[in-house]
């Protein structure tokens, strides 16, 4: 297999890992964002948390593996992306830690104050994590101030400009919507009724932000549409994206929440694909000089490593997918509180 083919395969595989992460952790982050709004008493709060109880940890592993795979396949991109987003990523880490321990510790002690602290922690960390992931995505999309030798020269404040913030808000809305449909599937009675009532306003919020970000990208990030302009076949990505978005209210109207969840999954998949199409063949576009950009070519590992890694992925991914399916199957059905629950 040629070096360039291998490189492209790894770009696609990283996209798969990122999509896997966004789809799976997307709904459990969304559940965290909705937690204070949908659950009214302690039992309901536990139900909401336990709807993702057995799953969130495995979902987060997609991010960890994405990080590891980026490190291995494109070490230069890994080093530059992570060092550029220094403060943002430390805040993201804080959120991920906060979420893990909020879930784990909340119900371990019978005290209202104790539980309220962890409930707040769960909500804040989920929301901020979604926001920060979106902000990082927005920055990568619009390009960053990369100097020669792959070093970031901008400041933290520049990363918080209006465009990345908009993408961050879009991410929060998308994950909340995705999580809301998930909760509708996993709950019953009053809680389910509340989840259902929230889907429509969340959908409008998301659709509005989606339209704004699309227009903003068109106007503010001209290079994002270059690939689509050059390869008209790629129009299929935004078209499928729009169809998936519109299918969410349709499926809810038809009374098929499972279909709606599938649609929101497809929206995430399509948005992530759109993101990949927009940045290709760069990982990070330099706004100082396009020559300084981190590309697939200058960021990749040696051919030998990419090949070895492909074997590792070929052995590992079928296992990963099969036990992911088994575990989702074991924990199918409506969420119930048991002695082992959070």
């Amino acid at each position, binding site marked *: 297999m040629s070096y360039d083919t291998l490189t492209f395969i790894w770009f696609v595989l990283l996209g798969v890992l990122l999509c896997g992460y966004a789809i799976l952790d997307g709904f459990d982050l969304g559940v965290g964002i909705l937690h204070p709004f949908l659950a009214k008493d302690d039992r309901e709060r536990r139900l909401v948390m336990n709807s993702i109880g057995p799953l969130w940890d495995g979902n987060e592993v997609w991010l960890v593996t994405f990080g590891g795979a980026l*490190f291995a396949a*494109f070490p230069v991109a*890994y080093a530059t992306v992570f*060092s550029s987003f220094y403060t943002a990523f*430390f805040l993201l880490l804080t959120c991920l830690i906060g979420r893990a321990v909020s879930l784990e510790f909340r119900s371990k002690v019978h005290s209202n104050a104790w539980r309220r602290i962890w409930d707040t922690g769960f909500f804040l960390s989920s929301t901020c994590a979604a926001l920060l992931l979106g902000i990082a995505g927005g920055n990568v999309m619009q390009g960053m101030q990369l100097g020669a030798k792959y070093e970031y020269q901008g400041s933290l404040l520049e990363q918080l400009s209006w465009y990345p913030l908009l993408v961050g808000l879009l991410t929060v809305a998308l994950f909340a919507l995705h999580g809301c449909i998930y909760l509708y599937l996993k709950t019953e009675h009053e809680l389910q009724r509340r989840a259902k009532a929230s889907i429509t306003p969340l959908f409008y919020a998301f659709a509005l932000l989606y339209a704004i970000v699309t227009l903003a990208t068109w106007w503010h990030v001209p290079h994002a549409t270059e690939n689509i302009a050059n390869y008209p076949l790629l129009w299929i990505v935004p078209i499928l994206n729009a169809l998936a978005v519109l299918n969410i209210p349709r499926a809810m109207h038809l009374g098929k929440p499972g279909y709606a969840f599938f649609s929101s999954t497809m929206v995430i998949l399509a948005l992530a694909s759109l993101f990949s199409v927009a940045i290709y063949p760069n990982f990070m576009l330099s706004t100082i000089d396009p020559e300084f950009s981190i590309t697939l070519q200058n960021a990749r590992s040696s051919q030998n*490593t990419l090949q070895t890694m492909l074997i590792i992925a070929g052995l590992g991914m079928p296992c990963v997918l099969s036990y992911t399916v088994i575990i989702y199957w074991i924990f199918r059905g409506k969420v119930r509180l*048991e002695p082992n629950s959070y």
Partner: protein
Amino acid sequence: MMDVEILSRLQFAGTIMFHYLFPPLSIGLGLQLFLCELSYYRTRNPVWEAAARFWTRIFAVNFAMGVATGIVMEFEFGTNWAAYSRFVGDVFGSALAAEGIFAFFLESGFLAVLVFGWDRVGPTMHLFSTLMVFLGSMFSAVWIVVANSWQQTPAGYHIVWHDVQGESMPRAEITDFWAMVFNPSSVDRLTHTLIGALVLGAFFVASVCSFYLLKNRHEDIARKCLSIALPTSLLFTFLAAITGHDSAQKLVETQPAKLAALEAHFETRNEPTGLYLFGWPDAEQETVHMGIQVPNLLSLMVYNDPTKPVPGMDQIPKDERPPVWLPFQTFHLMVGLGTMMIGVAALACWFWFRQTLDSKRWLLWVLVFMPIAAMTANQAGWITAEVGRQPWIVYPSVQNGVEMIGLRTADGLSESVTAEQVLSSIILFGIIYSMLFAVWVFVLNHKIQHGPESVEALLAHKAGLRPQSMSEQFEQTGKSHGGDFLEEDSQ
């Protein structure tokens, strides 16, 4: 203002030491949990099940902490050590990615069944899940220790110079994947690290059970678990000594500077080398204050020959010498604690075998505090290994007769990161980790004080779950057949 290098090293050391409190306990506890559950599986004795359910809860709390603090480590390579990441990504990254694919998915997936599946899956599936979680945590350690060992004793790679905007930059690239994985120190360091974790797990269980015996609580469960924890603690402390000795012997070839630092051996002499039992090394004056030395012992330990001299620090260029005081003390602390643990485990096993352990309250109290000794030994071992390799982040080596450049820690930093950023992240994580540590201790103590469920409560809980057979239904309700059952269900 302190400089970025010191701060980044402080940050890395702090976050990894904090992280390293949890994975060894998860691995060690994983084995104990698996053995408990295996005993339940074979005997169907509900006491074993109550024990396994209890250790599962403890395990889950600890595992969550390990996962949460572990992600930090993966991010930190890129955030703080970007130059290092570019230099080793080709090699180190693949081990890290293999860890993600082979270990993380396995452990976190089956953890769900282990923790939440007690009443959902059958005993065989549950036992299998426990084994998978344990194996997953072991695989995780395998890849991390492989990656770390490669930095200490690199193999299976070459240096390629890449042109970056007109400047040539070096990068390590894999030539032989298996030579990279099985580099000269991988196997020794891996077995020693894993066994260190298994020691901790065995002593942790022994500690909680001894505490219950001292307080006359949950005695049936405590005795059952001790029958696993005590023999395994003796076995693993003993194996730890053997594997530790093997690791140390390798140093003379692979990292002589580290060996000289561990033993504060400053000057090479043409005579057998002694070994310090204690001392206060002074690198400035190249001497050891208040040292007690056993003659010939170091030569014997390193070469299995009491007369062969061991090379000292003076064989190493001045700017390539590691600090001496810290690795010396942590190494001696680790060895001292290890010896003590063998003694305690042997004594406890002896009295257990004689069935007089209950009356030895002092020994039970010693056992209660042994996890602290095991944890300290693990941490000390880590400091020894990592500080002892300074100033190198990747050791220079010779591959097929060609000398390969190494990477100095000072050259591995992210250029775009400022001291203020690192300092603020240290403060942020200092606060978060202190709080986490307090919460972890609090919740762990809460769980231990609460203890396992009684066997009666467990049986009552399980009876409530089991769908009753039709004859039982009939006996209880007087209703004749299953039709009622279906009707009730549909309401």
